[in-house]
C-alpha cells in the first residue's frame, strides 16, 4: 500500500497533481488555504497506488510518496 504526503505550506494549489492521478483520489480544497493564501491539494480517498505521477508532476515538490 502506498501513501502520499502533501506539504500544505509548499503547495500552490495548481491542480496538476489532481489532473494526473490515474485513480483520481486528489482534489483541491475549497476550504483550506495555506499561509500564502492558496487552496491546497488534498487526498480524498485512501487508494493510492504509489505511481508517483502526482509527485513527479508537482512543480513545487510538495508531494512525497511512501510505500508501506
Amino acid at each position: 500500500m502506498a501513501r502520499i504526503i502533501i506539504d500544505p505550506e509548499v503547495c500552490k494549489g495548481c491542480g496538476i497533481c489532481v489532473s494526473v492521478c490515474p485513480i483520481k483520489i486528489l482534489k483541491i480544497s475549497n476550504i483550506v488555504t495555506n499561509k500564502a493564501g492558496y487552496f491546497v491539494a488534498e487526498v480524498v480517498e485512501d487508494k493510492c497506488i504509489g505511481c508517483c505521477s502526482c509527485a513527479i508532476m508537482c512543480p513545487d515538490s510538495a508531494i512525497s510518496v511512501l510505500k508501506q
Partner: protein
Amino acid sequence: MEILYKKSRMLTDTPLSYCPGCTHGIVHKLLAETLEEIGAEGNVIGIAPVGCSVFAYKFFNCDMQQVAHGRAPACATGIKRCNPDKIVFAYQGDGDIASIGIAEIIHAAARGENITVIFINNAIYGMTGGQMAPTTLVGQKTTTTPYGRVVGINGNPIRLCEMIATLDGPCFVSRVSVSDPVNVRKAKKAIKKGFENQINKKGFSLIEVLSTCPTNWHMNPVQSLDYVKNEMTKIFPLGVFKDCQEGN
C-alpha cells in the same frame, strides 16, 4: 517504509518563486534529481539567466552564478574553461537563449563547450509579463502581438534545436516536454544524458524543454499542459536532433 519519491537534496528549502503550476518547477526537479543521481553534489556550478528563473540561484543546492540576460553560455564558457573538471550547467528561457542570447548559445555550441544547457521553451516572455518570444507560435496572442503573431510582421518561430544541430560542435541536442508523467521521465533521461556527456568530456549538450506559462498564456495549469501537448509539439516536435554517441 520505503520512500518512492521525495524532494531532491539538490534543491534548497527556499520556496520556488514561480506561479502556481508553472513547469519551470518540474524542470528544476529533474535537474536536481539528475545532479544527485550522477553524484555531482559539491562539484557543480550552475548559471541562472534573466527570466522567471532569474532566482534559480536560490533554488539549486550548489554554487550558482546569476548572469546578464542571454549571456549564460558565455558565462558557462568562462567558468568551464577555468574549471574543466567541474560540472557546469546553464538554465535559460526562450527569450534569453533564442532572442537576445542567440549569438552566445550558437557559439558555445559551435565551440563544443563541454557544458550542459537546459532551455525552457514556454513560447513567451514570462518574467516581463507576456511579450512575444522568438518561439511564440504563429497566431498566438501576446502583449506585443495583440492581433496574434503574424509571420509577415513578427516573423517565424525559431526552432533552436534544429538550427544548432546543423553545427559540428554540439554533441547532444534534444527537445523534450514535461506535459505529462511519461514525458517528464523522458525529459529526465535527456537531461541525464546531457550531464553524462559532460562528465565524459563529449562536449556540448542542449536540452530544450517545452514548458508552460499559465499566467501569461491566460490558461489554468492543466489547460497549459494540454496546450504544450497539442499545440506546441506541432511546431516544436520532440526528438533527438543530434547525438554524437550515435555517430551522427
